[in-house]
């Protein structure tokens, strides 16, 4: 395995760890704070932190898959 591939995979692994840690911290916060969300507390009256957590995980997974495809086809 070349240095290039190793570095790319290392970045992906750290990226996944950071993503999972962030989402875990967010859900730990949710377990302690049961704040009743209404329309006016949401971002643009629609988005909540759970939406962003899901979006974050999906984006990082997509980022990982595209990078792996790139490495394999290089």
């Amino acid at each position, binding site marked *: 395995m070349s240095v290039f591939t190793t570095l*790319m995979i290392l970045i992906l692994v750290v990226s996944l760890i950071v993503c999972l840690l*962030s989402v875990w*911290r967010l859900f730990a916060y949710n377990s302690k704070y049961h704040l009743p969300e209404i329309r*006016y507390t949401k971002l643009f009256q629609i988005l909540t*932190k759970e939406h962003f*957590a899901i979006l974050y995980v999906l984006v990082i997974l997509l*980022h990982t898959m595209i990078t792996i495809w790139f490495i394999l086809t290089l």
Partner: protein
Amino acid sequence: MDNKDLHFKGQQSNETMICFFRHHWICLIREISYFIIFLLIIIFTLSKIETIKEILRGERELKLLFITGFLLGTIYLHRFFIKMMNHFLNIRIITNLRIIDHQKTLFFRDTMDAIDMIQIQNIERIGEGLLPNVLKYGDIKIYLNASSAVHTLAYVPNDKFHFRCITRQKESLQQRLQTRTHTGLENARDSESPTTSVYGIIHEKKSEPASKNEKF
């Protein structure tokens, strides 16, 4: 009434949460704008991915440059989403007893500042400029008793509503304390030897014998 930790950590038993709010979305406009530019760059890069692969094949220095760009892009991606989630963790809570300013981030900060309603001397709402008036946000300054301390809540969404909310809770608490003082004074006239607390609330000395169910 036992509301201990009902809605948030640190909520007291006799404390009722009235409402909570976060910073106005105007704080995120810069981050969202930069992210849109970042997305456009990524889309352009992905559209030219075959060309990039051909350029990178066999070129060690260019691969190093690519890794650097990839690393910076990945860091920026994480930073954006963590900032967006931090926006949701940073809250201000108005209860019937106090105002809590909870400044929290996912990893690096967790600061809680509670201001008792009794300690509030004056409240000021500041809405200066075109954007605050059009987008309905502003600052709320809270002046405290017995000190020159001022606590500012910046970027309060729907600042008129929250200003009225704080004012009404403060008035309500003052009325409750006055009612208790008044009731205590009336009871004190009938009782033998009343005692006075720090806040001027009169407590009645108990002369009746304790019942079996009463806890000491």
